[in-house]
């Protein structure tokens, strides 16, 4: 079999770490951003594309795209809705919430007693508090969730939107 195809070697662990650190800072806004990164790291564009693609396939990166400032886009109401749900019901309710289009994140977290009885957290970003509360009421009514104890915590001020070493590109509030 004759072929002219040259396959670049898989990146070493160290090269992968360098590549990750580089893309975490953000891709340059140029026509060939992956090439620009490859040149910086002295690897090939093909290696960059293949590696990022593999990371996505493996779920190491959930999504690779644009990071927006939600307040600047008019999403001023940011609600953390917390629920106290029996352990046996958590998964069922979490899946209902996760499927609601307005819910952006949904996590199970430990209760911290005394003082914090809630074990399921979800985020709803909306343009106003009224809109968010309306969307929440709608979900509760449609799925009979009103029987569960819950609380809505709106954010009143954002102090630090980035800074942690790993935090820059992970939106978790």
């Amino acid at each position, binding site marked *: 079999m004759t072929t002219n195809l040259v396959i670049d070697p898989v990146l070493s662990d160290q090269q992968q770490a360098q590549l990750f650190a580089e893309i975490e800072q953000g*891709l340059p806004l140029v026509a060939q951003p992956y090439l620009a990164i490859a040149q910086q790291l002295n690897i090939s564009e093909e290696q960059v594309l293949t590696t990022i693609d593999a990371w996505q396939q493996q779920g190491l990166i959930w999504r690779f795209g644009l990071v927006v400032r939600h307040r600047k886009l008019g999403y001023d109401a940011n609600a953390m809705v917390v629920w106290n749900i029996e352990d046996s019901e958590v998964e069922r309710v979490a899946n209902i919430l996760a499927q609601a289009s307005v819910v952006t*994140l949904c996590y199970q977290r430990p209760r911290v007693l005394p003082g914090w009885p809630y074990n399921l*957290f979800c985020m709803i970003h909306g343009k106003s508090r009224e809109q968010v509360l309306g969307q929440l009421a709608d979900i509760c009514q449609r799925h009979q969730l009103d029987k569960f104890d819950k609380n809505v*915590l709106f954010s009143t001020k954002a102090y630090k939107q*980035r800074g942690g070493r*790993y935090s820059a590109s992970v939106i978790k509030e």
Partner: protein
Amino acid sequence: MDQLDKQLINLLQKGLPVCEQPFAQVAMELGSTENIVLARLQLMLDSGLLTRFGPMFDAACWGGDFTLAAMEVPEERFEEVNQIVNSFEQIAHNYQRTHRLNMWFVIGTETAEEIFEVIENIQQKTGLTVFNMPKEHEFFVGLYLPV
């Protein structure tokens, strides 16, 4: 923001194509050109509407760790405590929220042990209790804010 800007924001939040000329591909999908798309995005980056193109990932897979923490801070001490908490480089987001637990922040570290060190340090410096609520199970991640 005009129609093209909005389309760009909506499309690119769902993912940037991983190919040689991603912006050319996006331009084609939207019936525009690579140059126009790049120029529009640059304007929106400059104005602070967008922050960057980057990965969303699970830090635990990359050797780091995260937790969500909360504190009940007396109103008159809020600014002081806020400055102490934010002085730690491991603090990512920090939000004031409408609850008795009124300060909520994310701690991101390179190791799991470091989380506890940061919490301990914050408690010592503020004299307040930190509620630690690491995620146990993740059901959905897909922040998407259409415009």
